[in-house]
């Protein structure tokens, strides 16, 4: 009997508190698989955000610290600068990373901290009950934009990897999605690559993962996947936006796997 697919060692068996269908779970698994495959679980320190994934530390089987809302990159900086031998990653939502944590994100990326950032973009504040995020799409309804995001007062959604790609320093910036298996496969490659960058001493990597929030989008999981495909991907194009080689032409993740 051969096992084709099973729970990675870096993931605890604890059941998550995530809503049914929430793809936070998939992203967790991908990170855990990457830790397993690269053999760095015993060397890794994760930083959880404030957001639905605040309890990530219960789900990963590696050392973890909880950061204040938006400050995970600063916490990760503190860890990596004192213990450069550790593999350090943050796991952050779009409210956490792109709203309150914008300065920490831009500066950690720009200082070239040798960390890796998993950025879960679900276009909403999940944990607090569906408020508008900086990534909420135009017209998308949220509890603090009950008539849909109005770009005239709230501006256009922020494309984080594109924003960071205008910086010279960061090594690797990619956007992936996890709402269908074929995307998940590419997402995994990007995440593995990002970890590998760090292990090989390269600086800041970010993988933005488009993710669903059935609960606050007010849809079933399946409809959420369709909605992501139809609405998010056109605005948030997938691919690798920046690599250590400095190429910034958008490439499919698949072509990047080393």
């Amino acid at each position, binding site marked *: 009997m051969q096992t084709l697919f099973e729970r990675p060692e870096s993931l605890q068996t604890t059941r998550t508190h995530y809503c049914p269908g929430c793809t936070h779970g998939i992203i967790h698994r991908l990170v855990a698989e990457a830790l397993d495959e690269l053999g760095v679980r015993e060397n*890794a*320190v994760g930083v959880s955000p404030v957001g639905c994934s605040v309890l990530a530390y219960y789900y990963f089987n590696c*050392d973890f*610290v909880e950061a204040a809302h938006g400050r995970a990159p600063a916490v990760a900086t*503190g860890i990596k600068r*004192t213990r450069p031998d550790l593999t350090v990653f943050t796991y952050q939502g779009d409210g956490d990373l792109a709203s309150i944590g914008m300065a*920490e994100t831009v500066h950690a990326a720009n200082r070239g901290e040798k960390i890796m950032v998993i950025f879960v973009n679900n276009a909403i504040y999940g944990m607090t009950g569906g408020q508008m995020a900086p990534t909420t799409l135009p017209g998308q309804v949220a509890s603090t934009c009950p008539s849909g995001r109005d770009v005239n007062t709230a501006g256009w959604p922020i494309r984080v990897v594109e924003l960071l790609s205008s910086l010279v320093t960061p090594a690797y910036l990619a956007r992936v999605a996890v709402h269908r298996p074929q995307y998940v496969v590419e997402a995994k490659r990007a995440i593995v690559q990002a970890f590998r960058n760090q292990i090989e001493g390269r600086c800041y990597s970010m993988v933005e993962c488009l993710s669903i929030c059935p609960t606050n989008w007010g849809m079933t999981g399946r409809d959420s996947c369709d909605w992501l495909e139809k609405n998010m991907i056109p605005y948030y194009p997938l691919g690798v936006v920046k690599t250590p080689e400095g190429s910034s032409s958008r490439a499919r993740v698949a072509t990047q796997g080393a």
Partner: protein
Amino acid sequence: MAKKLMKGCEAIGEAAIQAGCRHFFGYPITPQSEVPEYLSRRLPAVGGVFVQAESEVAASNMILGAAATGTRVLTTSSSPGISLMSEGISYIAGCELPVVLVNIVRGGPGLGGILPAQSDYNQATRGGGHGDYHLLVLAPASVQEAADLIGLGFDLADKYRNPVMVIGDGMIGQMMEPVEFRKSPVLDLPPKDWALTGARGRKARIITSLFLNGEELEALNLRLKAKYERMAREDVRFSTYNVEAGYDVLIVAYGTTARICQTAIDLLREKGVSVGMIRPITLYPYPYEAVAKAAEAARAVLTVEMSMGQMIDDVKLSVLGKRPIHFHGHAGGVIPTPDEVVERIHSIRAGFQS
């Protein structure tokens, strides 16, 4: 080590290095930028790391991360910068992490000014961030003591797994005085068996301040409370001046202000008036008992602060109505002069006759 004439800020930086601290994260702000400047020169030379954070908000979270690995870490700032660290400090306290923070206080509120002040007493001892936590707060009155308390601060932070704040003002930070560095650590310290070092051959560790369950969060708070009670038992520090001779007025003052009062006391002594002083060195835990006892020997108490009256609440809580408590203070960078204090003592004593 030989005595060296050093600026307070530089002595603070050097004392941290002597205490084994090799990591600094911070953001420039007058009147303490000499600390990061000094450390940006010195740390690389001793194999350490200096990081200029993008802000104090970031700095406070960087030191959280650094402390989580079990490393000694320092940040320094001044009033507005410390305010920006409030959330981070509350997290550090909630995560029970040892860090040393320095606040070289300037006049407030708001942007205020950069002259010496003691108007962050409340913030340091009670307020700042949200929740039931306390910093252990040390207040030096000289450059030498600043250096000593930095060393002690690292030890106490490790002893209690609690953030320690060393609080001074522009006078302490900018002044040069002779200083000699002592070896550290001095205390017997517990092992850091909670630090994040990678889960090699052990269970994964978690450092967090989140407890969604009320009982668990209460348990954290009870643990913190027990820690603060232990501090009050084991680590209250203060010094006295001219108390042996007997006195009818007791001055309570800390830091810079205590030095000014010391000069005032000398001036008064020359005129045959004996005034005693008690100088809290730990602002938290506060030397309530010592102040109470010292006050008993006096007919009145005078609190002198570079603020509109903040420590006075602690003096009142010590004396509990048993003696009249007077206040002399300035704010915003105006430094009380010894003459003013002398004046004030005279007028208090004049009240005794009537």
